[in-house]
């Protein structure tokens, strides 16, 4: 059990995170007690992204994922074909029951004493059960620890907390953005498949450095990624036409919109947000280097335009901007990026990349090749980012460093609210850090809360009309 802090020495957590002033004490990133409290108060409560349904398509399929520091097994059970998320730890004496990254199984058998679990988590095999337990072992009470699961238009989320709101309520206005991000380029729901295996690697930094300090961080791209933009290695070559985001999703021709950065302090989610100013969907912009790819995306853009005749595009996803679902997952239309705590000074990064499930092979190959050279442990963009992530933490741990707070003041006092997006603070400043302040507001709320009773309800009308399903 974690000894929950509401103060540290003579300072409360509220003095470490001052959203009103836009300063965050470095202690929040480097203090072991605070880290352990995060695992208890945040990662044991929130809805966390674990996988996409296309990665476990068949009965008996499984893959390993993470929730916080802990390994989980995502399965599709053999009998009912339902998705489950289990703690990868035998209920007998704790050993991992699954030691392969992915596969198809009849059972998960513990290598310690052979306690075995069906793909729906039930304990089905105990060697010498009658002899050892005299028939007294009630197997129904000893199934694998199972999380609550939500399959949201193909994206799989899980939480350990039975009192957490539904996933759709948890996501608020971002629910429609997640749905949109799971669509194929022609606007079909559940239109994606994700490449396997996902990329995984570890970096020597606190999870909040990539997840909080660096996500939806519009000011860093110009400097951190300068060489990447100059090299113009993306499919889009000269990326100025679409705003310089090096985004490989089907490139959109300019389309009337107001674009802001912001977030909802009551939910903790944040990101860029676009209010599109006309109905329909934009034309595709020809930019791919590989032959035949632009032809495909021109075709799907036409299909999407038909679907959105008379309707507004959602404000996030598919080129509108990326967003961060509290606490640790950034979603674009072309990648999902969870960051998992792996010790106070270590983070395990996952990268999941999709393609339209109905796209021809040459299009899927082009997308996969781009994603590998752009993102991930050897991708050019994240190699730039790792220079920051790795050394921010190292330079913040020392006795003197910890005396100075981080500054998250960009765009302060220049926010507005908009009836089109109830609950949000949107920034008039292009390179605002309102998204960061949003995440810290929610961080503080979770760290102080006794339970979800202290964290909920959300705004009653957070979801915009066009986002309601």
């Amino acid at each position, binding site marked *: 059990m974690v000894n929950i802090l509401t103060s540290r020495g003579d300072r409360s957590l509220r003095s470490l995170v001052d959203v009103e002033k836009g300063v965050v004490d470095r202690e929040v990133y480097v203090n072991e007690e605070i880290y352990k409290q995060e695992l208890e108060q945040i990662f044991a409560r929130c809805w966390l992204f674990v996988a996409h349904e296309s990665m476990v398509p068949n009965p008996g399929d499984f893959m390993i994922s993470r929730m916080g520091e802990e390994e989980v097994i995502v399965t599709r059970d053999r009998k009912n074909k339902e998705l489950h998320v289990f703690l990868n730890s035998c209920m007998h004496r704790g050993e991992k029951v699954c030691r392969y990254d992915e596969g198809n*199984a*009849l059972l998960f*058998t513990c290598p310690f004493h052979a306690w*075995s679990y069906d793909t729906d988590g039930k304990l089905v*095999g105990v060697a010498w059960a009658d002899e050892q337990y005299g028939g007294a072992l009630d197997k129904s009470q000893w199934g694998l620890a199972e999380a609550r699961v939500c399959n949201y238009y193909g994206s799989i989320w899980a939480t350990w907390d039975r009192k957490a709101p539904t996933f759709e309520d948890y996501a608020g206005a971002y629910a429609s953005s997640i749905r949109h991000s799971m669509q194929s380029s022609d606007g079909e729901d559940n239109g994606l498949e994700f490449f396997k295996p996902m990329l995984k690697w570890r970096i020597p930094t606190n999870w909040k450095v990539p997840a909080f300090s660096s996500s939806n961080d519009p000011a860093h791209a110009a400097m951190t990624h300068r060489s990447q933009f100059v090299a113009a290695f993306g499919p889009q070559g000269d990326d100025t036409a679409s705003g310089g985001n090096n985004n490989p999703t089907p490139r959109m021709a300019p389309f009337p919109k107001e674009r802001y950065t912001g977030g909802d302090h009551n939910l903790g989610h944040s990101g860029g947000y676009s209010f599109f100013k006309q109905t329909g969907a934009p034309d595709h912009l020809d930019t791919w280097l590989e032959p035949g790819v632009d032809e495909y995306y021109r075709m799907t853009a036409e299909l999407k335009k038909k679907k959105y005749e008379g309707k507004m595009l959602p404000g996030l996803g598919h080129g509108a901007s990326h967003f961060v679902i509290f606490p640790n997952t950034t979603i674009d239309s072309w990648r999902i990026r969870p960051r998992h705590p792996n010790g106070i000074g270590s983070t395990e990064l996952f990268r999941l990349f999709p393609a339209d499930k109905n796209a021809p092979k040459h299009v899927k190959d082009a997308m996969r090749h781009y994603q590998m050279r752009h993102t991930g442990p050897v991708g050019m963009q994240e190699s730039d980012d790792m220079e920051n992530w790795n050394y921010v933490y190292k330079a913040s741990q020392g006795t003197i460093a910890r005396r100075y707070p981080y500054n998250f003041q960009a765009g302060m006092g220049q926010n507005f609210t908009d009836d089109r997006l109830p609950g949000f603070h949107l920034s008039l400043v292009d390179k605002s850090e309102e998204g960061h302040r949003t995440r810290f507001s929610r961080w503080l709320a979770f760290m102080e809360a006794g339970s979800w009773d202290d964290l909920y309800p959300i705004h009653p009308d957070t979801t915009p009309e066009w986002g309601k399903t």
Partner: protein
Amino acid sequence: MVQQSNSNDLGGAQGATNYLRITEGSKVKLSNGAIAEVTANPNDGAWLFIRILEHADDSSQVGTEEMVFFTDVEAVV
């Protein structure tokens, strides 16, 4: 001289490998004398899914389906 391995032999180091390779439809003799058909092998080296075909001491067991642990499987027949 190279000793030929017997894939039905479930003893020793080779036996553990043979157990992993028992295929669906194979028949096995259990330590209680029953004969069973393998309906599935999870390839974990521990369990087999079986259907009892013959049981000299308890005919009511014939037809039942269960999991059997490797220590209770004597041989492939």
